[in-house]
């Protein structure tokens, strides 16, 4: 029996080796390296100068990145909850099917294509403003330039909402029909069901969707690079690319990288711990 269990553990270990190797070499090693590079100066001594440079020159951009990414994730969250709720609760089979199919569309469009679309859509004389001018809403000569935080917000929301809706929908699908039907029988309206049954019971999925979207927004390079370009403030990813491109400066690029890890990490830990735990326990109790 002992022999068997030893054999078994060896087998398990062997099976784990490939994934473990990949995990260590592709994730953990670069992660530690990034932290190291960001705190070492050119002669190899420990230093915080790279961080102090970031906070004197790029503080505005760091705050901008976090704010825009969080706001975009929040707007995506609201829209995706309404889409998911509608699909979960609607009794109109036909329309539900159409919506269920249509909302996934942006999932298959890469971020760089979204960025290019937004560039023509949101430009001062682009599709949106031309349309608004035709209806007489605005004067084309004074059309607003949306290539700032607003352009980023629209791009992120357009791209990320379906992804969020998909996760939230699967959370809603796990809520048994029994609860919903019971509420309906007792006269609860759609909004009430969403607020009191779906949202609390799918809290875990919602939290995960929000955290993943926020993290992926923070890591996006193409959209801010193509929408904001050289203007100020811009996102941390654009500055990282700039430091590496023009100065071969991995120290400040990595300092910015570590800051984004920290923001995403702290945020996810705090948020998920609270929300997922509560969600799981509540579901078990039900």
């Amino acid at each position: 029996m002992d022999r068997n269990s030893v054999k078994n553990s060896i087998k398990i270990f062997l099976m784990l080796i490939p994934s473990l190797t990949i995990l260590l070499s592709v994730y953990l090693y670069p992660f530690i390296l990034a932290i190291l590079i960001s705190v070492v100066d050119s002669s190899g001594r420990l230093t915080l100068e790279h961080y102090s440079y970031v906070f004197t020159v790029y503080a505005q951009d760091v705050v901008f990145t976090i704010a825009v990414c969080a706001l975009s994730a929040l707007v995506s969250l609201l829209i995706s909850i309404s889409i998911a709720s509608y699909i979960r609760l609607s009794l109109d089979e036909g329309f539900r099917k159409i919506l269920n199919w249509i909302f996934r569309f942006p999932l298959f469009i890469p971020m760089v294509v979204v960025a290019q679309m937004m560039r023509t859509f949101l430009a001062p004389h682009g599709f949106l403003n031309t349309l608004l001018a035709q209806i007489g809403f605005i004067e084309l000569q004074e059309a607003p330039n949306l290539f700032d935080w607003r352009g980023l917000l629209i791009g992120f929301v357009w791209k990320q909402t379906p992804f969020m809706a998909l996760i939230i929908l699967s959370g809603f699908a796990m809520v048994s029909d029994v609860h919903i039907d019971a509420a309906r029988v007792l006269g609860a309206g759609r909004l009430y069901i969403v607020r009191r049954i779906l949202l609390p019971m799918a809290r875990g999925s919602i939290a995960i969707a929000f955290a993943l979207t926020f993290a992926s927004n923070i890591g996006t390079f193409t959209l801010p690079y193509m929408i904001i370009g050289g203007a100020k403030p811009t996102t941390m990813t654009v500055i990282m690319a700039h430091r590496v491109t023009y100065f071969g400066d991995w120290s400040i690029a990595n300092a910015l990288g570590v800051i984004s890890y920290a923001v995403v990490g702290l945020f996810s830990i705090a948020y998920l711990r609270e929300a997922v735990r509560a969600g799981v326990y509540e579901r078990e109790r039900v």
Partner: protein
Amino acid sequence: MGSVLLRTRSGILMIVAIAVIAAVIIGIALQQFAPTTPGKVRLVYATAGDINMLALIQNVIAPEFTKRYPNVEIASIHTGPGEPGSRIIFEKLKAARDAGKECWDVDVAVVHQIFMSWALKEGLLLNYSTSIPTWKYVVSEDAYNALGTYIKGFGIPLFHSQIAIAYNTKYVQNPPRSYDELVKWVEANPKKFGHNGIRGGMSGVGFVVGWVYWKTGMYDTLARGPYNEALKDAITKALEELKVFNEKVVITAGNVGTLDMLAREEIWMGPVWVDMFMTWLAEGRMPPHIKLTLLAPGLPGQPMYLVIPAKACNVEWAKKLIEFISSPETQAKVIVEKYNWYPGIDPNVVLPHVSEEAKARLFSIPPEDLQRYGKSFPVSQYFTDILKLYEKVVG
């Protein structure tokens, strides 16, 4: 019993799966080192730059060259736009050198100016260019001096590219002829001039550099050295004034962002790369009533260089390929007519082969203006200073 069987079966399946994956990986790895058919030469050509740089080798140069020398096969690698593209080539060569390889797997590389100082400092390049026949056509200062580094022998300019100001003749009848006049024009027409700052591509960087040349009046020192840290104050002052100027302009989203906004007439003026602008014009993406001009005291331009790594595997064939690319015929038909660049070699030997139509395009900026107002980029330390100070002062 059944479960044991199942377990062994899944165990076997697992082993088979791992074996298949391993075989695929080894196969791919081996292919990298596979010897080509005997007698066939595989020439590896790495290029930095925009996607047109890949098209240049893949669609035009390689087929022509292979037609002449059927035993040569050209494998092209594209490392990406701007200086990061050149940096990738630099790091690849450095890695090959550090690994102690006898033969590095790049034969010809096309790189930016800044690459030359990196690569020469590390001894990564072959001193070849004076030994090929087309060297006699190489006349430009660029072939000797790249951002302050003396490079004679290590590279031949593939082409020269220039930054100029594009303006919409519908709204701008008398374009400014100097930075001074531009500032006045912007005062009168706020938010109708656009450039992309320094994080969105080199046309914006060039505009900023030209501004610093103008405000400091120290072009010769900035472009030729020697480096003097004390100039930082003058540069800072120039950039402070640029910050004020920027409040009345649009900061666009990159080189293409400026072209886009010009084409949609959202801005009426902005700095562009001449070759990109001409290509857009030829493709009908830029309205024909948008024209080019240069500003006094000048706007920078830059060449890209053809180089051979110090331990290229096929030096003789690499030289033959570079000779072909830098011949007056190829320069005329490909570099000037097809891609709208200025030739990398002496224009006097190239122009007789160029069509009248292409000549007209090429001279939309008169040659005298180009001679007078076409400047170099600053030497690398000043260049870095300008970019870093821009972020501190302007944002």
